[in-house]
């Protein structure tokens, strides 16, 4: 899956007379765009983004599932690639030969669940799910409860969220200290009601998503002041309909996901103007070649494509598969997880 930007430009339209109000999601073109990403290995950027490859597969695959084309990528090749990224320690690197990291291990688990390959894992390798889960659990800091990204100890609430996300998919939450992780998240709550990547770090919509996501997974959203946080989150919508991630920053399609999913978890999705946001996201798609960009006029990429599509799914845009705001995966798949049956 190439992380190469472009060639399309968000906001380009094929028929000159189309009015913004009539913009619709060009599902087939987005599917073709994502399928085409893998044939771009002759571009230097393909190789310069190798350190993101496994994330890229997750983004592309998830977008395809939400667009209702789950079989648009060959399952066997996807599985083969994911397994080739796994290292001796049980974790996954961004690409074969890269060191294990939480970011890629999380993507690997999400991909495996999405293509229904968790059982293949048990058959194809020793240790199966538990080997991955032990790698993740080993990254929890026993004193603070948070998680590091790798053996080098960088901590971030992103890693904590990914740990909970992956471990709940693997049904291995018992391997970690949930209570201390939850206290750590609470320590990240700021004076403005939001959350940052570490205690005292500035409130950021992306980090709010990770903290709320982690709390949702362990059913502890009761710890959050939903009204205050919902007010901060809904204040992210600007008059052009788009959302930003922090006060006084630019709007960006990816916040259609981080802000919106957070509002959905709090049950406050209706506090923003959905119609205006839909128009904003659609104004960022290249309706000729497919793909969505961060804002109108910029180059499209797979990252903004998946989060734009996921945002539209949350807003109930017709023709899309329902997304789970906690996992950014098709809801049908997450609802069937053994962890959520308990």
């Amino acid at each position: 899956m190439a992380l190469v930007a472009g060639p399309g430009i968000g906001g380009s339209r094929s028929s000159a007379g189309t009015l913004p109000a009539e913009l619709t999601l060009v599902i087939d073109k987005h599917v073709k765009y994502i399928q085409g990403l893998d044939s771009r290995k002759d571009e230097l950027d393909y190789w310069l983004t190798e350190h993101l490859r496994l994330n890229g597969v997750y983004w592309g695959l998830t977008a395809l599932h939400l667009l209702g084309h789950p079989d648009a990528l060959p399952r066997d090749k996807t599985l083969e690639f994911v397994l080739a990224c796994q290292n001796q320690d049980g974790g996954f690197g961004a690409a074969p030969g890269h060191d294990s990291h939480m970011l890629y291990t999380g993507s690997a688990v999400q991909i495996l669940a999405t293509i229904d390959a968790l059982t293949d894992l048990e058959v194809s390798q020793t240790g199966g799910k538990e080997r991955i889960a032990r790698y993740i659990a080993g990254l929890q800091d026993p004193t603070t409860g948070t998680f590091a990204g790798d053996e080098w100890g960088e901590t971030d609430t992103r890693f904590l969220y990914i740990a909970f996300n992956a471990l709940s998919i693997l049904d291995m939450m018992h391997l970690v200290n949930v209570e201390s992780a939850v206290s750590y998240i609470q320590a990240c709550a700021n004076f403005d009601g939001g959350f940052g990547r570490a205690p005292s770090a500035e409130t950021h919509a992306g980090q709010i998503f990770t903290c709320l996501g982690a709390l949702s997974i362990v059913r502890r959203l009761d710890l959050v002041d939903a009204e205050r946080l919902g007010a901060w989150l809904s204040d992210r919508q600007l008059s052009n309909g788009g959302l930003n991630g922090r006060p006084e920053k630019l709007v960006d399609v990816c916040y259609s996901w981080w802000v919106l999913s957070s509002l959905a978890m709090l049950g406050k999705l209706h506090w923003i103007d959905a119609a205006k946001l839909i128009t904003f996201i659609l104004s960022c798609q290249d309706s000729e070649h497919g793909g969505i960009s961060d804002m109108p006029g910029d180059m499209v990429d797979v990252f903004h494509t998946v989060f734009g599509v996921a945002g539209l799914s949350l807003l109930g845009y017709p023709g899309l598969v329902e997304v789970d705001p906690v996992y950014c995966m098709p809801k049908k798949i997450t609802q069937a997880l053994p962890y959520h049956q308990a």
Partner: protein
Amino acid sequence: MSKAQPSAVPSRPKNKSAKKREPFYAVSPRWSDVSPIPLIEGPPGQKDPGPALATIAYSPRYSEAMSYLRAVMAVNEFSRRTLELTEDIIGMNPAHYTVWLYRVKILKALWESEGTRTEDGVMAELDWLEEISERNLKNYQIWHHRQLLVSLLPKLPTTEPEFVAHILSFDSKNYHVWTYRQWLCRRFPDPLLTTEMELQAVDALISEDVRNNSAWNHRYFVCFGADELKAIEAEGGNRKEILAKGGLVVDEDLVEREINYAKDHIAWAPQNPSAWNYLKGVLQRAAISVADMQVFCEGFVGGRHADLMSDSVRSSHALDWLADIYRLTGHFDSSKRCLHALANKWDPVRRKYWDFRAKQVDEEAREDQ
């Protein structure tokens, strides 16, 4: 480090462009003993390098360097030439996290084998890092690398605050830099927090851009947050619990100074959410009711009886606060007037939120009767 290398060493690749076609390592006598390992993208054990061959035709410099990296990492070679190799690759692609991790291992091994004092080694590496940091503001490996290095030092390098300020001059809201800056304050509270150093630095940034939310967040950290964190770490629990327990001493002079600071900056830019959020945070920390801010807030809407749909309103945040203040003091009609003005004139994009607030006021009014 690499800048101090002996001159006998053959020159490092001059052209950093990853698009260059001429091989560098394959023709260098210093690397003749290494067999490069091409990328195999596929299942383990696959013999065919597959797409890697196609790549070589398009980006030989980068893929060549990567193939030598794979070879030296496979045998854990920690040497001068491998340090230069990491520099070469980082120059072309600083987001490649594995290279950074490998570089740290090499540095530590070299300091030991060459008898370099850790402090000297760190300072030389920081020197090298400076230029790369300027060119890659969004990269986060660079800041992690920096933190790892500085954590090895017993004292704050005098140049460090200057360097952070310099980088923020390119992007004053850079999340990595602010995170690093907080780490720096906690690692070296003396002198950063025991003197006025950080406070003055953050004041300068707010003066430059009063809407810099990152700077406001840092101000809270400098004035209150660092102490809160210490208490959280000492007692366990979280901020809310510790504040509720009254476990933190509230310095009244400090609170008054910060309330006035926020008010002054709100007066300067009444529609700036950062200063309002900060004021709310300080009030909460000091357990002061927002109702104490009634007169202050009314100043931004044209007074208690002003027409809230008219241009006498200079701040939607003031209306938001007044809606709360009037509700708390039992002036439900005034509260609803504020919310109505917000939903219909000043912030219609969030109409549903303001409607929700109005419903809450209705409920409270009913209970009050």
